């Protein structure tokens, strides 16, 4: 045994996940597609929103979905019914998707289609406002949903998620007439933790705000795809 030594690392604690996330993003850039990571608490309306958005955007964009779910494939079946390819990723005990799980989903997707033919890849994360905020999967943009039934203090209680989001959708606005909730306060609390994100009020039931939301999606796609791709050809997928 020798004298004590010290190495300065300065590494991110999640470096292993980040390496895989960057690897996934390299693929997305080579395929020239936009990847959105959609996150919220359980029941905020991710799947209902995706059903509407997939149907509305299908005429102009080629899309696929990686669908994270802890135990079932119920959400994947709902989205598959819209006519868009869906790869279910059952996470088991894990309460979030990580970059390696999404890498595994990409392998399955490639067995069904050429990802270079896609314009937009949706990742529907596991319903949870805590851990998905810290685990990048290679997405270009993070989208967080907050339904009006959840109360106006959610952004203050789960600030990291709302701070990290590029776009926050306030969902189920059709229920506002029946609830003692002030949507201005919800929006003010989102702005308090994240003054720069887009905030859009939507209802998958009534269709309110969907056009604004879809315009945001189109703008992100243009912004990401017109950035020069970092590589000419897609690198081989890392072993899961």
């Amino acid at each position, binding site marked *: 045994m020798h004298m*004590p030594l010290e*190495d300065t*690392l300065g590494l*991110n604690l*999640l470096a292993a996940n980040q390496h895989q996330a960057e690897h996934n993003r390299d693929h997305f850039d080579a395929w020239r597609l936009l990847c959105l990571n959609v996150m919220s608490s359980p029941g905020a309306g991710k799947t209902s929103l995706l059903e509407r958005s997939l149907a509305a955007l299908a005429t102009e964009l080629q899309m696929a979905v990686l669908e994270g779910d802890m135990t079932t494939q119920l959400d994947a079946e709902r989205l598959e019914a819209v006519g868009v390819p869906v790869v279910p990723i059952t996470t088991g005990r894990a309460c979030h998707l990580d970059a390696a799980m999404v890498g595994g989903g990409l392998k399955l997707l490639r067995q069904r289609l050429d990802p270079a033919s896609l314009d937009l890849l949706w990742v529907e994360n596991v319903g949870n406002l*805590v*851990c998905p905020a*810290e685990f990048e999967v290679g997405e270009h943009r993070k989208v967080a949903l907050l339904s009006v039934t959840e109360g106006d203090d959610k952004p203050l209680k789960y600030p990291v998620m709302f701070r990290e989001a590029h776009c926050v959708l306030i969902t189920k606005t059709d229920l506002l007439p029946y609830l003692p909730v002030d949507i201005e306060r919800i929006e003010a609390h989102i702005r308090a933790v994240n*003054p720069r994100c887009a905030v859009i009020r939507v209802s998958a039931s009534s269709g309110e705000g969907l056009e604004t939301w879809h315009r945001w999606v189109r703008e992100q796609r243009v912004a990401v795809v017109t950035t020069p791709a970092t590589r000419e050809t897609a690198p081989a997928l890392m072993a899961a």
Partner: protein
Amino acid sequence: MHEVDMTKCLVLSMQEWRQQHAPHTPQVDRLHLQVGTFTCVEPDQLVTTWQAAVRGSWLEGAELAIETVPLVGRCLACNSTYRPDPQQAYRSPCCDHPMEEIVSGRELRIRSVDYRLLDPPSPTPFATAAAV
């Protein structure tokens, strides 16, 4: 319990670091981490999952020393720094400005490793005999 997955990432990083020292085996005494308060990590849970994860491995006995880094924001109205308070919606007390810039509090960092190097394994008697 996302601390379990975070611990897995940490062990992977340490395995990579270990390879830099081959053929020596580093004996890790302590890992210094920085964890910001504006993250989803609970330091106590990280210590518990770490101890469970490294039991029986080359990292057994390595202690996690976690430095908690407070959330500090900068008020863009007057450029002063402040400790954002959830009760005040994280707004600056000086100018009642929203939390635009985070100076610290998002850290999830492996700062450094305290370790000792064990001697590399000596050539086996079999190899020596073959050379003769």
